[in-house]
């Protein structure tokens, strides 16, 4: 499929624009993170040392050591410069490099995110298409309700129910921990189910739109069997928006993972973040927030670019 130079230039410019925007968003996000966390009440140094019997002088000393008393512009500049070098600092609570800590938690988080996304997309697509194609019938009502049910159930509840039923009662699956496909089944099902709702909703509305287009009508007039029309033409229209919603929901995965990780005793960034927030381990909170923001921006960038590439209007230019 040859592309005209016009299309390539357009794509190039579009890419450049999006990259610049992404960079700006990242800078904004990191600045927000920096300032927001400074507003939390309480003194992190004291929180670290109080129970160990440190004297007030020692707490003050530790504050200075952590750079908490430096003037704000200095702290901010240092923060930005460190970020540019990829240095996320050292955890106040654990003394380890934040980057290492985050990198350690990335594989299990990514594992769960990918598995949950797969479940969510498959379920969401299926339910959404079903609901749209058989619109206004009981099938629509049933599929929509199931999809929205996923959106409506708190994961810490559905997760525990799943454990008690599948793990304890039926003994089919391990309840907790990490270490292989079997351990991934329950958490990804629970999280994926929650995710499928928004995907199904978007798919349903898009597919419903497509169903009435002249394009589809023409295909049917040509005698192509319904099933083929649906699978090939209608689905293709649905995949784009489904992926777009998935990309948008990626942030939800990291956040929803917080609860899922806790319930299923899985390691991951969510748990790291909550512990850091509770203990005001600011470097770690910043690190996780930034990594999350980075991942979100990258995923959305990729999805935007993919959509641009696949955009039939661009194809037409070729």
């Amino acid at each position, binding site marked *: 499929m040859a592309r005209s130079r016009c299309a390539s230039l357009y794509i190039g410019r579009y890419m450049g624009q999006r990259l610049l925007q992404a960079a700006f968003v990242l800078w904004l996000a990191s600045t927000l993170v920096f300032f927001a966390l400074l*507003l939390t009440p309480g003194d992190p140094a004291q929180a670290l040392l109080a129970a160990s019997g440190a004297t007030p002088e020692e707490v003050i000393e530790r504050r200075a050591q952590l750079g908490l008393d430096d003037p704000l512009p200095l702290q901010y500049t240092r923060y930005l410069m460190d970020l540019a070098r990829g240095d996320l600092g050292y955890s106040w609570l654990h003394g380890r490099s934040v980057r290492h800590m985050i990198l350690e938690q990335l594989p299990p988080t990514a594992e769960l995110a990918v598995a949950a996304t797969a479940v969510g997309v498959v379920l969401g697509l299926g339910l959404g298409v079903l609901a749209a194609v058989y619109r206004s019938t009981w099938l629509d009502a049933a599929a929509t309700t199931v999809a929205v049910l996923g959106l409506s159930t*708190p994961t810490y509840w559905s997760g525990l129910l799943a454990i008690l039923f599948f793990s304890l009662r039926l003994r089919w699956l391990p309840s907790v921990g990490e270490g292989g496909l079997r351990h991934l089944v329950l958490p990804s099902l629970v999280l994926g189910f929650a995710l499928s709702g928004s995907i199904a909703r978007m798919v349903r509305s898009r597919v419903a739109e497509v169903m009435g287009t002249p394009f589809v009508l023409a295909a049917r007039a040509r005698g192509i069997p319904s099933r083929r029309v649906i699978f090939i033409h209608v689905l293709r229209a649905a995949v784009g928006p489904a992926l777009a919603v998935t990309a948008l929901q990626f942030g939800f995965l*990291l956040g929803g993972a917080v*609860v899922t990780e806790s319930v299923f005793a899985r390691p991951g960034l969510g748990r790291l973040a909550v512990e850091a927030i509770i203990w005001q381990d600011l470097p770690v909170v910043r690190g996780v927030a930034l990594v999350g923001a980075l991942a979100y921006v990258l995923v959305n960038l990729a999805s935007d670019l993919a959509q641009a590439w696949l955009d039939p209007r661009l194809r037409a230019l070729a």
Partner: protein
Amino acid sequence: MIVWAAPAHRPLLRQPMTLLALAWLGLVALGVLLAPRLAPAGPSIVDPAHVLLPPGQGNPLGTDFLGRDILARLLWGGRWTLRMGALALMAAVGLGLPVGLAAGSLGGRTDAVLMRLVDALLAFPGLLLALAAVAILGTGLTAVAMAVGLAAAPPYARVVRSIALEVRGQPYVEAARAVGCSPWRIAVRHILPNALPSLIAFAATQLGWILLNGAALNFLGLGVPPGTPEWGLMLADGRGYLRDAPWASVFPGLALTLTVLAANLAGDGLQEALQP
């Protein structure tokens, strides 16, 4: 049978699921209003001698881990849950609507800057955003509502913007601009009224998200004061007893899930009903 048509306006009366959902919401509202009549003793009567009783005489839905009647707590708790939801929704709309409207109606530089700000906020997982907000604002109902509202505002702004953009492209709006109406005037007098139905529908679905995340904050122990009969908190409290006294968490869980479900379905249904 397969429906080969574009989505059309489907009046509410022909949407059984949406009607059911609205009926449930109405029931919840009724229960919440009538709480003082139905459960005059209030939600906080602690009775250590009768903890975790199963549903039965005197306690239609059983008692919780401190011996409090669960039905009473659900009825009174609806006030807290809905109050938090309403506050948070107001915050989300109050923050998101002007931003999205300005971005969609005014376009250009304003749009670019505002949307980058929204993107920056969207980049953070909603729950973490709410957690951070709670860390700053403290705990308690208002703080939690503000925090969750803040986390819900960016998606709302985005949707408002896209709707505003759509409406802006309509011929009559173009005409208004040609005539020389100021962009703000157009925004408020033309775009907003036309976008309102869709905005309301989306707000209904946002309510579901807000209720769930508010409950999640309570689960993490960073929400309303302990003892508040808020449904999410009741669910979190009862969760530890799921094996011995499932009613302590099943009923609040059902209340929460069904209400969120109803809000979502109603929102979707309204969308279809308001389709031109």
